[in-house]
């Protein structure tokens, strides 16, 4: 920072020589202040002193030669560190151990119990795995041994799902009329609670969000088609709202009678054990589908990390390892997230426990 200020000082000296003395000083003062603010922004880290963040690959599952993963869609881990993925290309739910060794799979193409047409989202209570299907209603529940347990009915297509406990699941539906709500359901599919997060009477899809819920029940929303990230209390009170991409708007185009968005703003949201929020940017980000914005619980953006390859989602496990996509979904990567502070480099995994 001091180097940058010294550069600004040198520049101001040059400008002062070339302009009227008094006007030049005022201009330079304004310029210096503006530049100082713009340099300062990335280092506003809410007291954490974090300068940069980096990734170190620790595990890679699936490659171009094997038959392990064809197109993984959802990922989750259990309490022992086993990794589960839904594979959209072979209609399956697969399990890998903590070292990334293939353990087994279940599922096949179909509409019966334990079968899939288009497996997508995956979430876990620790004990059970919950999987959605783009073409089948409801949520299928599997044991850690990949045995189908039961199906939870839900009337609408599911855009986002977060399992908090086996009896409390947060769902964001895709619905023409029911947009702007998060539903909390139990294992029977009964609605326990509805939380309205958006009052805008927007057309279809514009209010879709990715959701994360912290241990206190606070809800974090990353809008898929708007530049907006918000935090709400468990009662639905909006606590803060922020933009990361200058409030840019998504273009829409007409398909039949619907106006649909053409690009995605934010694709995924996750929280680590230190209550840092990770938001995966989409098409509007500088590095499309690779930039992950890291915010504190007050909504201050203090760091950005860039994934090596575009991803459709990110996931943070219980030990704060970050998972993302590679090789167009034929590979799952697991990374350690390393934060560099002013004083020392620290790994998130040491801080989290």
């Amino acid at each position, binding site marked *: 920072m001091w180097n940058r200020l010294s550069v600004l000082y040198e520049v101001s000296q040059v400008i002062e020589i070339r302009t009227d003395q008094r006007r030049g000083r005022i201009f330079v003062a304004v310029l210096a202040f503006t530049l100082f603010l713009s340099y300062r922004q990335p280092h506003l880290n809410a007291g954490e002193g974090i300068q940069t963040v980096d990734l170190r690959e620790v595990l890679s599952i699936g490659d*171009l030669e094997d*038959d392990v993963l*064809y*197109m993984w869609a959802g990922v989750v881990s259990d309490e022992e560190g086993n990794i589960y993925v839904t594979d959209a*290309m072979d209609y*399956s739910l697969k399990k890998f151990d903590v070292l990334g060794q293939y353990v087994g799979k279940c599922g096949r193409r179909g509409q019966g119990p334990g079968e899939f047409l*288009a497996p997508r989202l995956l979430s876990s209570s620790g004990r059970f795995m919950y999987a959605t299907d783009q*073409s089948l209603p409801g949520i299928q529940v599997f044991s850690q041994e990949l045995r189908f347990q039961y199906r939870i009915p839900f009337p609408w297509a599911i855009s986002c799902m977060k399992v908090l406990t086996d009896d409390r699941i947060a769902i964001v539906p895709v619905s023409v009329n029911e947009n702007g709500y998060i539903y909390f359901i139990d294992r029977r599919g009964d609605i326990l609670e509805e939380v309205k997060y958006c009052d805008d009477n927007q057309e279809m899809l514009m209010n879709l969000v990715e959701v994360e819920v912290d241990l206190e029940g606070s809800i974090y929303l990353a809008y898929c088609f708007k530049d907006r990230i918000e935090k709400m209390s468990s009662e639905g009170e909006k606590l803060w709202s922020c933009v990361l991409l200058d409030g840019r708007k998504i273009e829409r185009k007409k398909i039949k009678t619907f106006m649909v968005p053409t690009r995605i703003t934010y694709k995924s949201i996750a929280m680590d054990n230190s209550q840092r929020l990770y938001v995966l940017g989409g098409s509007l980000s500088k590095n499309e589908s690779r930039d992950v914005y890291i915010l504190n619980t007050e909504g201050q953006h203090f760091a950005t990390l860039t994934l090596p390859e575009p991803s459709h989602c990110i996931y943070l496990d219980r030990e704060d390892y970050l998972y993302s996509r590679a090789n167009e979904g034929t590979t799952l990567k697991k990374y350690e997230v390393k934060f560099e502070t002013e004083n020392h480099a620290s790994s998130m995994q040491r801080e989290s426990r």
Partner: protein
Amino acid sequence: MRDRFIVLVLLLSVASTNLNIWTDELRHEDTNQGIFLLLIMDFNDFMCPTCLDSLLDFCRQLPVSFRKRCIQGVVVTDKYRKKESGDSFEKIMEKKIKGFVKANHVEFPILLDRNQIFGPLIKKGTSVFIFNTETHAITQHVFPLTLQEVGLIRLLSKSSS
């Protein structure tokens, strides 16, 4: 227009070579007439369960022996390919096709259109091309097929089985 002509010529030359081979096989097996199908698929349809249903249901209605002997699949990935796609793109796509074949018990061979030749032929969507050895005609049918089209192809395939 010129591109389409070139592609059609290429296709016909490939087809005529294969037609000779298949025709010989059919004649050897003492059939009077025969068809073979060239199924050109847009990779995007693999991600569309409804589109896939239409395609797989059609294939399942054809006799097993016909499926194994008289169909060739080609997957076009033009729309899926990005400017920055590197050399690994083909490997990735072939891997995905392998997974699709295995998961859906596909009995006919499927190739990847590595040289992006077949894309212009399916601008309206995934299509099946019928090569008729009897009439020496080639007809294109775009998915989803009508009931009449399915019926016709089934009838012709039974003659070829």
